[in-house]
């Protein structure tokens, strides 16, 4: 392990730049929310929030200059959050489909017929 490791001090311009960017983006997100874009609003708001989060993570938290594994840990955890989201939402919003579309979804004419049915 390297003994003469100097701590990296993040240049001031990154901090100030991040602060300004975050303040502007907050105003943007509030302004956009006043316009009714229907379902698109939420996606836009989340998009802006993610950019803001990116600024905080990379510059305030210093991930841009951080060790490799710390990055893997952080972004890896987001992968698991994504798994959680996608699977639970996929389940909740596809639960009733099988009953409303019964047979045509799986191309089963009648499940009873399929036993030993050659056709």
């Amino acid at each position, binding site marked *: 392990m390297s003994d003469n490791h100097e701590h990296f001090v993040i240049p001031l311009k990154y901090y100030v730049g991040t602060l300004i960017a975050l303040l502007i983006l907050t105003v943007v997100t509030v302004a956009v929310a006043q316009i009714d874009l229907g379902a698109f609003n939420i996606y836009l708001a989340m998009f802006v929030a993610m950019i803001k989060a990116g600024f905080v993570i990379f510059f305030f938290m210093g991930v841009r200059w951080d060790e490799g594994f710390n990055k893997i840990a952080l972004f890896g955890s987001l992968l698991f959050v994504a798994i959680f989201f996608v699977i639970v939402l996929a389940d909740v919003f596809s639960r009733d489909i*099988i*009953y409303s579309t*019964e*047979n045509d979804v*799986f191309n*089963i004419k*009648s*499940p*009873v017929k*399929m*036993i030993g049915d050659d056709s």
Partner: protein
Amino acid sequence: MSKEKQIDSLVDYGTTWLPGSYSTLSDIVDVQFNAILWLSVFGTLGITLVTLYFCLKYKRTQKNLVSKSQIDHNARIEIIWTVIPFIIVMGIFYWGFRDYLRLTVAPEDTMEIRVTGEKWRWYFEYPGTGKRPSDDLVVPVGQAVKLVMSSKDVLHSFYIPNFRLKRDVQPNRYSHIWFEATKIGTFQIFCTEYCGDQHSNMGANLIVMSKNDFEAWKEVGEDTETPLPILGKRLYKSKACNACHSIDGSNVIGPTWKNAYGANRELESGEVVLIDDNYIRESIVYPGKKIAKGYPNVMNSYAGLLSDREINALIEFIKTLKED
């Protein structure tokens, strides 16, 4: 559990591993079960025998103090034992999934029956008939039946072992299963989602009748012939009163019925009432109104589930439990 009707035994019929198979689809489940069972038996035997053989062959003895070889990998064999199990399990997945669809997706021309679960009984309603809610699930043989199920309180699960069918029952949502019975008889229904004290007594009978018998059963109106106390005794079991009320004086969940009629009862409010016909009737229809002191307020209302004659029958039955 009630032995009044001869219920088809799960243990005595069927194979060593599975109970009797009495629906059009239960056989396909059995085929797969047996296939994987034998695969497992051979797999486990193979692994065990190889392990024991190695134990004997390479046992540490004076002649064998040092390993013969430090072989630590063999690409070919590792690929083989990765790929072959992979193919096998993917095959089983497809097989299971295909059968799952057959079990889940009902055909077009089903007869619908509504199933309601509540702590701790099932009842079954037949839309389009004048039938009162039934305590037994009565279905005709050779007819596809679709059950539309829901719960009144917590989660339950509706399980017919002989048909290899199970589905959770939830409050505020409907779940469905379907089947077509192939054998006339009386079979067991269980609740398999843990639902509280009397979970293990939350069973029901599935009665499969010939089509003619079923039509006749549908037409049978209310029982006006059985003497009231005898009818009451029957209802005591079939309406699951026995889950919470004893008739031998012991305390279960609710107060006992023994020596109850004509006695005075202290209520949670501190008031004391006489147990008479009116009090019993009110307690059946509005169970939350007058709670006996020391007992939880957990009983569901039987309004609409019992006819006037049936309520009278229960009152008469409780009267017979009075000892002099």
